[in-house]
């Protein structure tokens, strides 16, 4: 089992996340899908790091920590926004959130 296996899992995770983001209409689930995609990226980063593919000094691992921090912040802000919208709109369905057209 080499690097490819990790990357395949990572790609699948990313694909599931993307599908979820595009297909789901619930704002909360869309946020979760974003987390899936971020984690797919993290997985590929640490995999590359483990096989010392590009850099020697754990750059990939450190970068994945940075992505986690950003993901945490993004989830916090994103959830806060989504909850605020759900409160005003009384619905989590993003199809109802189309006021910004034109």
């Amino acid at each position, binding site marked *: 089992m080499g690097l490819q296996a990790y990357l395949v899992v990572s790609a699948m995770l990313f694909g599931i996340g993307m599908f979820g983001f*595009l297909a789901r209409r619930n704002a909360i689930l*869309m946020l979760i899908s974003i987390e899936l995609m971020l984690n797919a990226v993290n997985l590929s980063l640490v995999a590359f790091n483990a096989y010392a593919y590009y850099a020697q000094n754990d750059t990939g691992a450190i970068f994945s920590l940075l992505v986690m921090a950003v993901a945490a912040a993004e989830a916090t802000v994103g959830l806060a926004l989504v909850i605020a919208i759900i409160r005003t709109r009384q619905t989590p369905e*993003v*199809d109802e*959130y189309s006021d*910004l*057209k*034109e």
Partner: protein
Amino acid sequence: MTVESLIALIPALPLAGFLFAVLVGPRIDRMPAHGHDAHGGGHADDHGSHSGHGGESHDTHGEVDDSTFRPIPSEEEQRATSPHAGHADDLANSNGADGVIPADLNDGIGQVGHVVEGGPRPVYRSWWVPTLLVAIGWVFSMVVFANVIFGGHTYHVSLYEWIGSGSFHVQIAFLVDGLTAMLLLVVSTVGLLVHVYSIGYMDGDRGLWRFFAYLNLFMFSMLLLILGDNFLMLYVGWEAVGLCSYLLIGFWYKKPSAAGAAKKAFIVNRVGDFGFGLGIMMIWTLLGTLDFEQVFASIGTLDPTAITVISLLLFAGAVGKSAQFPLHVWLPDAMEGPTPVSALIHAATMVNAGVYMVARANPIFAHSPTAMWVVASIGVFTAIFAAAIALTQNDIKKVLAYSTVSQLAYMFFALGIGAWVAAIFHLVSHGFFKGLLFMGSGSVIHGAAGEQDMRFLGGLRDRMRWTYVTMVVGSLALAGIPIFAGFFSKDEILGEAFGRGYYLFWAVGLVVAFMTAFYTFRMVYMTFHGKWRGPRDAWQHVHESAPAIVTPLVILAVPTILVGLFLGIPPEGGLIHGWLEEVFRGAEELGAGILPGSIAAGGHEGFGLWPGGVLLLAGASVGAAGIWLAYRWYVLDPEAPARFVARIPLGLGPGMYAASVNKYYVDDLYGLVWARGGVVLGNALWWFDAKVIDGAVNGAGWLAQRYGALLRRSQTGHVQNYALGMAAGLVVVLVAFLVFRS
């Protein structure tokens, strides 16, 4: 005071007069409240009917058909057609007797001879300061004249540097030599007399202060023009007299004909001035200076072609200002202005500016035989062309206007053949006698309550004795009868033409002299002899003009008689030749030898009894013959002209008459080509602008809108659509990466 300071003061005085008239004038004149018409009754109505009389006799006497030869209508005819008979009341009403235009607003309307006896008088105080300043200027001018002519001095007065920019230096400086002194004599004298004359002529006009302001501004400009010692000052004066001409032609600005004539004069002059300006720029580009002396000293170093181009460009300005063919059309129309203006600007001074400029630039012109040929040819052609129009005009001022064009052409003819002194001699004598004739015609118009169509005048010599005598003196001078000024100057031009071998030009000049004598005395006979042909009741009011009008006529009659005797004897060797010798020496030496067609290389030294005496006799006899013919046709046998026209072979007579009356259709041609053509061109350009230019601009906006409308559809507001776009983009980038990786 030194003569130099006098020279500097001469143009400054009328400038001060202008400022006075503008700033103080309107505050010190008083017009009677609500006008003289209230007191005049029927009399005032009669005057009111004259307000429409401009030069356009075709309008006011519309029923008189100009295309058939009928110079003097029979009594019944003119009773029927005269506007005084039928609809005088309508005209009077439209002009204020009933208050459509308040009758006391006689400003810019142009009623002549309208102050009603017994009515309240306007009080004028604005004329005396301008007139006094011009009178002082005249005294100074005479002192300077005497110093230059009799003392033999040439004055250079440099006041200060006007423009100093790199190598471009222009001084405010005056140059007074013999040539300028001659012009100074004419301009100051006629200018002063016209001021006095205007006091009488403009009586009753609300805009009197305005009139004197313009007159003073004109005097300032004209003096600047003749005194300046470089081309730029000449140009400034040149344009300023053009402005004053515009202002004064349009003085009665409420008359559409006058306003139109003013515009026409200004625009036609622009055409010539454009060339003049280019010529001056070319002089500066090639020689680096505009100072007369420096330019004339170094002009010989230039390429002959360049000199020819400069000369022709300068001459274009002269053609415009001096109303030569093909830019002559403005001068006859300029007669819409008040008659003092016609006398001063459009006969005696401003129109001479072109002649003065060519004479001043004689070293330039003398270097270019081509330019001299052009000057002479335009002169000869315009002389006979304008004289042929003057033969048939019925408006007394139009006759004089075409006569002025013709006589100015005579001067250019003289300049072109290198007879410089003769040209200036004719300029001086013409300035006096044509000023006299115009003022005389003004006196007629004034005395006959605005009538200036000669077909409705006649018999005035009984009522206007002084005007008659002085007009006859001026007419004899114009006709070239011996002892009068015009005889000597005209004969000198013809003699020079003959002596230098221009036999064709000489012959044409002789024909023009005959025509001149004929139309001049046709005018005299139609106006002063015979019976009054106007309406009977108007004859009651025909009277000699006021002393302010008649006095200048009498004064001007003196130089009209004496100038020729004093300056012109012996022919081609008179005093004026000595006075102007210095100015034209270079050109005389250079010009006489190189002019094409000239047989008298190295200058021409006057004639002996043969052929000189014969030439004199010929000149005098054609003048006498013209007068005799006019007497036969317009006094003895008024039917004769019609019979003569009928006798012209091939039935060309009526056509020729119509062509002459209609000024050879030059105005119509210009109207068609330039005015209508301008409208057509303007419409075409407007179409291009509206359709093409605006179309492109609007099209750009329209295109953006259309694309915007298309792109708008992509803004759904659904966040997942955007996300799908991003994903699609990502896929595109990935595919592109994989495809183009190598």
